[in-house]
């Protein structure tokens, strides 16, 4: 479990990183916290020829409010978000970090890295979709913003171009009544199902699910009429995977439970 050989490149600026990406092409991988990438490299499931280290790039570690919006630099760590006082508007982000791996992983892992990695159960991917985050990417042609809803294309696949670097994630609106919860058999594991709820999303309450499909699934349940709980409504509305050991029936049951729990938590605020 030793990585295959690679060349190491240290970027000192965003432009420098983009320059390296442009120059080195598809054989290059960006490393930030490396908490998923290095594990995959140790298994030789990932074997980039070039590693572009952006951890020494200044200016990507800021947490900043700009009016209603919250800006997180790509290199902000999970732990920094967990410990930050983001106020009632964004406390959901801090609280959700308790679900991200364990303390040493949160110490090192970054928001940008998690978004770029695009794991279907990753908390940041769910939160980005839930809260209409915009992913700010810089490429040779300059900066562009990609809506979270259009960013995650599949497991480990995103709308990011090979020569683009995520520099910032912008959460444009407060979410005072939002919550995220998960279930796994063991603490710190990737969730079997994760559910995030924002009761104040534009157009009505929104639910985003992880673990049911290759990318986060967003649902806007129509509640109100009838006696069914939001969880039951969502569970009936989504397609879920069936796999050995975890049937679609069970996964649907988890969706029902977790949506109801997240919903109740959000509503209690």
């Amino acid at each position, binding site marked *: 479990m030793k990585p295959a050989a690679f060349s*190491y490149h240290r970027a000192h600026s965003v432009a420098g990183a983009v320059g390296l990406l442009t120059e080195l092409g598809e054989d290059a991988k960006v490393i930030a916290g490396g908490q998923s990438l290095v594990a995959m490299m140790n298994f030789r499931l990932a074997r980039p020829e070039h*590693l572009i280290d952006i951890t020494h790039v200044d200016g990507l570690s800021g947490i900043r409010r700009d009016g209603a919006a919250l800006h997180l630099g790509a290199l902000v760590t999970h732990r920094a978000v967990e410990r930050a006082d983001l106020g009632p508007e964004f406390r959901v982000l801090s609280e959700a970090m308790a679900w991200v791996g364990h303390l040493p992983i949160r110490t090192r892992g970054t928001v940008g890295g998690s978004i770029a990695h695009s794991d279907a159960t990753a908390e940041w991917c769910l939160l980005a979709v839930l809260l209409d985050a915009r992913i700010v990417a810089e490429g040779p042609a300059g900066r562009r913003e990609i809506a979270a809803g259009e960013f995650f294309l599949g497991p480990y696949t995103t709308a990011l171009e090979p020569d683009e670097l995520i520099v910032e994630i912008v959460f444009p609106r407060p979410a005072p009544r939002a919550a995220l919860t998960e279930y796994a058999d063991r603490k710190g594991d990737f969730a079997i199902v994760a559910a995030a709820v924002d009761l104040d999303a534009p157009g009505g309450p929104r639910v985003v699910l992880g673990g049911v499909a290759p990318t986060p699934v967003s649902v806007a349940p129509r509640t109100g009429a009838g006696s069914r709980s939001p969880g039951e409504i969502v569970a009936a509305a989504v397609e879920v995977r069936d796999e050995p050991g975890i049937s679609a029936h069970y996964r649907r049951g988890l969706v029902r439970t977790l949506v109801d729990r997240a919903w109740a938590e959000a509503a209690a605020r």
Partner: protein
Amino acid sequence: MIQLIELTVNGERHDLAVEPRRTLVDVLRHDLGLTGTHVGCEHGICGACTVLVDGAPVRACLMFPAQVEGADIRTVESLAAPDGTLNDLQQCFSAHHGLQCGFCTPGFLMLAEGYLAEEPDATKEEIREVVASNLCRCTGYQTIVEAIDDCAVRRRAALQQQLDGSTA
């Protein structure tokens, strides 16, 4: 390809020429001879390789040394006094029988050092949650949690005593 790097470990500066792909834990163990940090899984789950980087606990199996040039790296070897006297946390582990085979122990010690430095007022339940970061196959964890909690209580009491002394 060989890369020149400079690492500061336990306050000592080292100049190294290594392949970039060597993980930090391998460099610490085999290039610097600091074998107290152990390797248990090489995919970031067991925590046997936990060290402190700028005071925070990290998995040394998931890092390359070039990423931590200029950082302050601390390993288990930094805890005891030069004459071998164990620090308070190490003494608590011994008193509570928080180790059996001792293989996971350096990882738990560094995890606890990093965490208690950040959260000196941690409750026992919070400590248990952090202890869940690493794997131990011998103890069943209870005595590890108790050892760290005991150490935290003692440090708080010592600090209080100091404060009381300075105001008196």
